[in-house]
């Protein structure tokens, strides 16, 4: 068991455990914090997969900006363990079963796929570097990139209009 495998299992267990904690925590604040932990674990995976730029962006955008936004909203509404609405036990079991079924079905379906034997390992590949990604982004994907800026603008306008007190 080499260092890569140790890292993989560690990060995987961390991601799954913190994801489970996200959906099981009674207090929304804890959920947010566990979600940040999940994102860090996923970013670790990104680094292992030579996607350095995405790993950084994931931490900055998700763990930094988006999760802070979540925290702000939760604190703004003063949500805590006491105000947390709970579903009935049967609905929870039904939901868990449905999700478990989906997991089983998907894994069973992909178990025999042809790509199963392929590998994704740490290597000297450099496509994850910002230099290479940027070059591709501003040449081949320049139109979607520009459109995404329009999307941001409209999202900003939308958020302001919705959030505005009339």
């Amino acid at each position, binding site marked *: 068991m080499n260092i890569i495998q140790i890292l*993989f299992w560690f990060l*995987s267990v961390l*991601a*799954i455990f913190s994801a*489970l904690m*996200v*959906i099981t925590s009674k207090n929304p604040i804890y*959920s*947010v914090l566990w*979600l940040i932990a*999940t994102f860090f674990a*996923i970013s670790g995976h990104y680094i292992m*997969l*030579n*996607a350095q*730029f*995405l790993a950084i*962006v*994931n931490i900055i955008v*998700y763990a930094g*900006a988006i999760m802070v*936004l*979540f925290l702000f*909203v939760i604190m*703004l*509404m003063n949500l805590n363990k006491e105000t*947390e*609405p*709970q*579903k009935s036990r049967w*609905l*929870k079991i039904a*939901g868990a079963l*449905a*999700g*478990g079924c*989906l997991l089983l079905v998907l894994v069973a379906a*992909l178990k025999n796929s042809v790509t*199963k034997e*392929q*590998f*994704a*390992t740490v*290597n000297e*590949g450099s*496509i*994850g570097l910002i230099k*290479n*990604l940027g070059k*591709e982004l501003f040449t081949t994907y320049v139109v*979607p990139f520009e459109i995404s800026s329009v*999307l*941001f603008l409209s*999202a*900003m306008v*939308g*958020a302001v209009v*919705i*959030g505005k*007190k009339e």
Partner: protein
Amino acid sequence: MPIFSYIVLSIALFSIGIVGVLTRRNAIIIFMSIELMLNAVNLMLVAFSKMHQNAAILAGDVSGTAGMDGQLFVFFIMVVAAAEVSVGLAIIVMMYRNIHSVDVNFLNRLKH
């Protein structure tokens, strides 16, 4: 690592996100579960991107850009997710302002 490990990991995270959507009533937690599902998909895309790059290197293409599309997709998903979160949170705030709750069970207007 075998690609199947990443597949299973992604599916597990995705399923956990679904279970979160199904079992919680707090709109913000549901929203976070959706983010979790998005990240599961992102992880999958990056893993496949790496897989294709490996295959290209093994075939002799050292300096090629094979598999880069996957990472760019992830980038765009993040962009869209950021926009979506800003709007979604704005909606949740408005909902809280109107009904003083974030319980989705109150949002049953579809019935009428």
